[in-house]
C-alpha cells in the first residue's frame, strides 16, 4: 500500500490538513452559537401539539462552528483553487461582483409577495435579464422560473406538449441522440413520452437519415444538445430543424453547451423552438457544490402562449407579474414550475456578469473558450486518442484507446490527475465512446494554466504506457481521503448519523 507520506502524527492531522469529526460528535447540552432573548411567557396556542422530548441537535459555540466548516472547506477542490476541465459543466471563474450585487438588501431582503409597487426594481432586473437572454438567443420569449437545467428541460418539453394538445395533436414519442445527457430521457418520461434513441454518424453528429426515418406524426419533439455532448457543432442542424418541423414536431435544444456560441450563433436562427440555459454554467453563477442553479427557457413564437406562470410584463404603470391564468391575456400557460417567481439570486448574478462582459466581451469569451479547447485538442491528440476529428467547439472528447494494454482505466487516469492537483475531466460520458474523457477548459483559464495541464496529461499518458499501472491503481495518495468504498456505501447505506455504537462498523 502506497502512502503519500509515511510520517504518522499523534492527532492524525498532517500540517494544514486537519481531521474534523461530525458536529453531532461535538455536542455539549445547553451550548449554543446564538444568543437569543428569553421569550415572553404566553399561553401556548399550538393546539396541544407542543413538541415533547429532545430533537437531538448538537450544541456548539460560534468559534467551534466556524472552525468546523472552515476545516470542511479545506477538504474541497474549487475553481478558486484550480482547474476543472469538466466537459459540459463550464467551470469558469465565478466573479465576486456577482456575489456583492446579489447581497444588496434591495434584492436579497425582498419577499416575493410584496405589493408590486414596492419591488419595481426587482421586476425591472428580471425584465432586463430576459431582454439580454432573448437578444443573445434571438428568441421572442423566455420562461424565467425553472430552477435548474433539468427543470428547464421539463419546462421546454411540457410547453411543447401543451402546444400539441392545444392543436388536438397529442403525440407519444420523443427522439433523443444516443449521446444525450441522462436528464433528457428522464425528463421525457416525466412528460409521459416514450423515448427513442437516434444513432450518431462516424463524425460524431446525429445521423440525419436515421433522424428522418424515425420522424413521423407520432413524434412530439426531437431533443438535441448543440454544440453536442461530443463537443462538436451539429453542422446539419438546419436540415434537422426542417425535418422535425415538416413532421409537425418541436425542436428542443439542451443549452448546456451554449458557452461555445454566445454572441456568435443564435438558437433562434437555427430553427429551435425551446432551449434551456444554465445560468450556473454559461453565465458564471457559482456551482456551490451542487447548486443552486437557474434554467430559464427561451421559446419560439409557436410556443410562447403556453409558457408557464409567472412572467413579468411592462405596462403603463410599471412592471407587473402575471401569476394567474385569468390574468394571462389570452395565453394558455400549462401551469407553474415552482413556488414564487424563479431564482432571483441567480438572476442578479447572471446580469452582473452579462453587463460586465457586454456584447463584445461575451463574444470574446466564446471565442476564447473554443480557442482553448482546440489548443488542448492540438496539444494532446498526439498522445491521447481523439474520438472525432477537429475542430471542436468549447470541449474536446478523447476515448481510452490510448490506454489499451496498460491496465490503466479512464478512472485510474483521473485519480492520478487528482494527485497532480487537477480535478479530473468528465469521465465515461458521453456513452457513445469507450471510457470517455471530455475536457472543457473555458475561457477563464490562462495559457500558463493550460500548458501546465497539457504537460501533466502527456506525462501521465507516457507513464501509463510505460507500464506503471500500480501507481495509477493506488491513486490518489495525497488527498484527505483516498479511494472510498462505494460498493459498501450502496449495499448497506448509512445516510445519517445516529447515536449508535454500531454506526461506524457497517462498511467493510
Amino acid at each position: 500500500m502506497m502512502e503519500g507520506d509515511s510520517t504518522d502524527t499523534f492527532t492524525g492531522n498532517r500540517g494544514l490538513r486537519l481531521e474534523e469529526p461530525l458536529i453531532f460528535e461535538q455536542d455539549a447540552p445547553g451550548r449554543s452559537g446564538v444568543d437569543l432573548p428569553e421569550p415572553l411567557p404566553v399561553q401556548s396556542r399550538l393546539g396541544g401539539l407542543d413538541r415533547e422530548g429532545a430533537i437531538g441537535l448538537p450544541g456548539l459555540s460560534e468559534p467551534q462552528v466556524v472552525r468546523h466548516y472552515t476545516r470542511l472547506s479545506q477538504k474541497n477542490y474549487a475553481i478558486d483553487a484550480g482547474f476543472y476541465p469538466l466537459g459540459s459543466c463550464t467551470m469558469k471563474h465565478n466573479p465576486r461582483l456577482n456575489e456583492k450585487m446579489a447581497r444588496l438588501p434591495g434584492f436579497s431582503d425582498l419577499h416575493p409577495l410584496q405589493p408590486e409597487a414596492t419591488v419595481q426594481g426587482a421586476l425591472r432586473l428580471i425584465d432586463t435579464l430576459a431582454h439580454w437572454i432573448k437578444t443573445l438567443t434571438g428568441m421572442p420569449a423566455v420562461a424565467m422560473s425553472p430552477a435548474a437545467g433539468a427543470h428547464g428541460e421539463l419546462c421546454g418539453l411540457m410547453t411543447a406538449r401543451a402546444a400539441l394538445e392545444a392543436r388536438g395533436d397529442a403525440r407519444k414519442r420523443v427522439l433523443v441522440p444516443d449521446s444525450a445527457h441522462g436528464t433528457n430521457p428522464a425528463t421525457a418520461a416525466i412528460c409521459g413520452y416514450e423515448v427513442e434513441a437516434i444513432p450518431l454518424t462516424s463524425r460524431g453528429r446525429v445521423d440525419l437519415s436515421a433522424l428522418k426515418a424515425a420522424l413521423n406524426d407520432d413524434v412530439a419533439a426531437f431533443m438535441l444538445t448543440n454544440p453536442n455532448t461530443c463537443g462538436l457543432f451539429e453542422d446539419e442542424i438546419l436540415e434537422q430543424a426542417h425535418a422535425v418541423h415538416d413532421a409537425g414536431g418541436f425542436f428542443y435544444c439542451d443549452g448546456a453547451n451554449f458557452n461555445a456560441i454566445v454572441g456568435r450563433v443564435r438558437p433562434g436562427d437555427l430553427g429551435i423552438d425551446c432551449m434551456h440555459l444554465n445560468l450556473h454554467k454559461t453565465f458564471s453563477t457559482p456551482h456551490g457544490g451542487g447548486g443552486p442553479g437557474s434554467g430559464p427557457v427561451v421559446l419560439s413564437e409557436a410556443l410562447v402562449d403556453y409558457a408557464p406562470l409567472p412572467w413579468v410584463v411592462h405596462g403603463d404603470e410599471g412592471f407587473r407579474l402575471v401569476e394567474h391564468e385569468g390574468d394571462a391575456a389570452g395565453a394558455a400557460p400549462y401551469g407553474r414550475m415552482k413556488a414564487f417567481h424563479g431564482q432571483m439570486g441567480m438572476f442578479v448574478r447572471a446580469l452582473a456578469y452579462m453587463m460586465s462582459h457586454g456584447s463584445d466581451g461575451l463574444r470574446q469569451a466564446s471565442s476564447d473558450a473554443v480557442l482553448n479547447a482546440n489548443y488542448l485538442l492540438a496539444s494532446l491528440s498526439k498522445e491521447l486518442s481523439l474520438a472525432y476529428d477537429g475542430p471542436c467547439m468549447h470541449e474536446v472528447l478523447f476515448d481510452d484507446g490510448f490506454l489499451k494494454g496498460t491496465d490503466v482505466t479512464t478512472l485510474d487516469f483521473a485519480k492520478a490527475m487528482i494527485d497532480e492537483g487537477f480535478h479530473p475531466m468528465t469521465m465515461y460520458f458521453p456513452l457513445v465512446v469507450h471510457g470517455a474523457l471530455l475536457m472543457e477548459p473555458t475561457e477563464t483559464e490562462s495559457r500558463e494554466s493550460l500548458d501546465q495541464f497539457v504537460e501533466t496529461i502527456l506525462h501521465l499518458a507516457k507513464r501509463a504506457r510505460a507500464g506503471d499501472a500500480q501507481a495509477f491503481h493506488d491513486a490518489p495518495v495525497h488527498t484527505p481521503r483516498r479511494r472510498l468504498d462505494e460498493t459498501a456505501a450502496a449495499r448497506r447505506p448509512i445516510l445519517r448519523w445516529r447515536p449508535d455504537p454500531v454506526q461506524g462498523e457497517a462498511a467493510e
Partner: protein
Amino acid sequence: MRYLPLTDADRHDMLGVIGAPSVDSLFSDVPDSVHLSEPVDLPAHQGELEVERALTAMAAENISAGSVPFFLGAGAYRHHVPASVDHLIQRGEFLTSYTPYQPEVSQGTLQYLFEFQTQVALITGMDVANASMYDGATSCAEAALMARRVTRRADVVLSGGLHPHYTETTETLLKFLDSTIDVLPPDVEGEEDIAAHIADGTACVIVQYPDMFGRVRDLQPIADACHEAGALLVVVMNEVVALGALRSPGDMGADIVAAEGRSIGNPLNFGGPYVGLFATREKFVRQMPGRLAGETLDVDGKRGWVLTLSTREQHIRREKATSNICTNSGLCALAFTIHLSLLGEDGFRRLAAINHAKTVQLADRFAAAGIEVVNDTFFNELTLRLAEPAEPVVDRLAKDGILAGVPVSRLRPGDAALANLLLVAVTETVTDNDMDRLCAALKEAA
C-alpha cells in the same frame, strides 16, 4: 477584459500551435447563414463601478423587508441569520466547488451534506433525508410522484390548506401522467374532512402543517386513515422553524415530509434560490429522488463520505430514473446546516418559542382592537378577516411604510369568500413598535 486571461499574443501563438489561420476558422462547422459577424445589439463591456451603479439603482427602487415593519409569510418567513453563515458559505472552496462526484477532493461537501441529511431527519422526525431539492413546492410535487411509485397507484388528494403555489406545482408535474388530482376547497375554517376523500386509487394525501391559514392540526388521524387504505401521507411544511416548537410530522405517522427549508440560513431573495427538504422512512429510501451522501471507509480504513444510491438518478437510470433532478440547492443547504449548527438544540427551540410568543402577543392585540383572527391555533402565522378586501388595504399600508402581510387573494384571486382575508406572519425580527404600528393601521381599516 478582467475575466479573460488570454492576451492577443497568447491567442496568436495558440492559433499557431493549432494550425488554424483565425478563431473564426475554428467555427467552420457553423453554417455561414447563421454565423453572426458582429456582436449582438446589447451594451458593450463595463467595469465594476458602472455595473454596480446600474444594479444598485435597480435595488434602490425596492422597499427591503428590513427597512419597514414587515409581516409577510405565506410560504416565506423572514428570520435573522447570524453573520458567520454568509461568511462561511462564501469561502471559495464551498462557493466555487462542483458536485462531489470525485469524493477524494470533495469530503467537505459530502460531510456537510451528511450533516444536513441528519439534521433534516432529526427535526422532521423521519428516518432519512436527501441532499436537498429546488424548493418546498417541487419537493411536494416529487413526493406525489414517489407515492405513486411506492403504492403503484395513480391518484393524489390535496388539502385545502396547502399553499396554492404548491398545489399548482404538483398539478403541473403530474399533468401528463395518468393521475386524478382531487383538490379540496380552501380550508379557511379548518373543518375539512380529508380522510373522506381517500379512495382505492389514492397514492397519497398531501396536507400542510401548519396549513396556509396558519392552523395547526393533529395529523395522526389522517395518517391512520391513509395507512388503513394503503395510501401514503405526505406532510408539507412552509415554515420549518415551527419544528422547534411543534410535534414532528414523523411523530404523527407521516410517510414523506416535503418542506421549504429556506427559513433557516437563507435570505428571502424575492422567491429564489430556496431549498427543498425531502425526508422519508427507511423502507422507501430507494424510491427517493435527489442525491444522497452516504458514509463509508477509504482504502486506509478512514471514515469518509460518497454520493450513493446513484443508480436511482438520471445519469444512470435515464428514462427510468426516480426524478430528472441533477443540480439541486447545495449552497443553500450548507447555509441551512451552518445556521442550525449555530442554533443547536436550545437555540432552535428558543427561536421557535420567541416566534410563537410574539405571534400570541399580536393575536391578543388584534383581539383587543376588534380585529378578527380566524385561526384558533397557530405557530407564527395568523389569518385576519378584515371588513373590506385586503389587497387595497395592504397597498395603502405599503404607501405608509408598512408591509402588512399577504392578502389571500394574491394567491387565490377571484374568490369573494377569500377577498377579505389577510395572512400575517410574526417572527423574531418583529418589534413591539412594529406591532403597534400594524395594529393601529389595521384598526383604521377594520
